[in-house]
């Protein structure tokens, strides 16, 4: 199959920077191509393709980013990553047998909290999602959902009781979603959780979660475990979705108001021509 330029010429996470050990190469698959990541003796990190050619490289947000094409744009910016007092936590990859686009779509789905993350990120009878705002911001070419409010029994590892949590979602690249949510220890500030997805094939991917939190108390292992527990709940849903590819034609579905963000995301993918991991004609 041919991979569209928009998919090929983008940045994807290929490794966690801190976990690369000098002299021990790691190999990963990115859209069917095998890449080798090596931290050399001079501490320089290099990514090479199977034919030995060097691949583009960006080191940011704790991850090594690369491409099988030639990205003409810099990696998206997360300004909060530079803010003082935040803890950066890499949660490691989770392999999911689903389209990378499905994984991003699920991350954007506010309505699934009470049903998938029962008694943690949501609970009955608080299943109603209040009206929120979704837009494709043409100036930055990103999808944003703002003014999202939801009751959560345990919004984060640091949360001691249930609370109304405010959310914002941002999609700066087809396989990336960034979530902003009320920080339980600092109600005026946002915790930031990034989901960075590497497509292995159209129906298989590795999802890396990354957090930039205001949380001085929880230990690192607990934070990672909390996030992994949440994501494993998502995975079991994701791996059972039919079709595995993300439909860009919703003929067989009935999206309702709760799916506004998903539809905006799919419209944005369609306009960009991002078809890797997508189903174009409903069957």
């Amino acid at each position, binding site marked *: 199959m041919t991979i569209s330029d928009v998919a090929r010429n983008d940045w994807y996470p290929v490794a966690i920077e801190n976990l690369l050990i000098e002299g021990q190469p790691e190999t990963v698959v990115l859209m069917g191509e095998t890449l080798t990541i090596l931290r050399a003796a001079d501490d320089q990190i290099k990514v090479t393709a199977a034919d030995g050619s060097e691949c583009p490289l960006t080191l940011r947000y704790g991850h090594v980013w690369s491409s099988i094409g030639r990205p003409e744009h810099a990696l998206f910016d997360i300004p909060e990553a530079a803010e003082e007092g935040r803890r950066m936590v890499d949660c490691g990859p989770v392999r999911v047998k689903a389209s990378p686009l499905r994984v991003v779509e*699920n991350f954007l*789905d506010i309505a699934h909290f009470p049903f998938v993350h029962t008694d943690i990120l949501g609970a009955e009878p608080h299943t109603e999602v209040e009206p929120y705002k979704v837009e494709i911001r043409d100036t930055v070419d990103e999808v944003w959902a703002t003014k999202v409010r939801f009751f959560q029994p345990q919004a984060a590892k640091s949360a001691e009781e249930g609370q109304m949590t405010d959310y914002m979602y941002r999609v700066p690249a087809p396989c990336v979603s960034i979530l902003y949510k009320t920080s339980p220890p600092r109600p005026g500030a946002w915790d930031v959780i990034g989901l960075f997805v590497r497509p292995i094939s159209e129906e298989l991917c590795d999802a890396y979660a990354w957090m930039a939190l205001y949380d001085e108390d929880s230990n690192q292992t607990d934070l990672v475990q909390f996030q992994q527990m949440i994501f494993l709940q998502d995975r079991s849903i994701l791996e059972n979705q039919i079709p595995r590819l993300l439909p*860009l034609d*919703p*003929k067989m*579905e*009935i999206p309702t108001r709760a799916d506004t963000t998903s*539809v905006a995301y799919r419209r944005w993918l*369609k306009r960009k021509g991002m078809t890797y991991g997508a189903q174009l004609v409903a069957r």
Partner: protein
Amino acid sequence: MIRDTQPLMMNRQTELFRFSGDVSDPDFLDWICHRANRLGLNGWVRKNAAGGFIEALASGPEELLDAMELGCSLGPITVWVETVVRCPHDSDGPMPNGFKILTQAD
């Protein structure tokens, strides 16, 4: 994931929809009709050749009219819906039972 649930609201209303953008694929009319029938809406859809857009009159509960807008704003892959405009319509005339495509002859 889009769940296959339909809200059960009884407050029926009638609205005129206008879909514009790259909507010239004639199959889009069938697609819209299929959507409206799945949602149980009454009304019609037709091509406004002079205006270069598609217009549909649909009657049903507000939540389902919202679902109509949302589904059609994405539409089939051959179509790009740039904008959807909706306005209330005082329909004293008879609404068709079900949903159909109007041709020029209608």
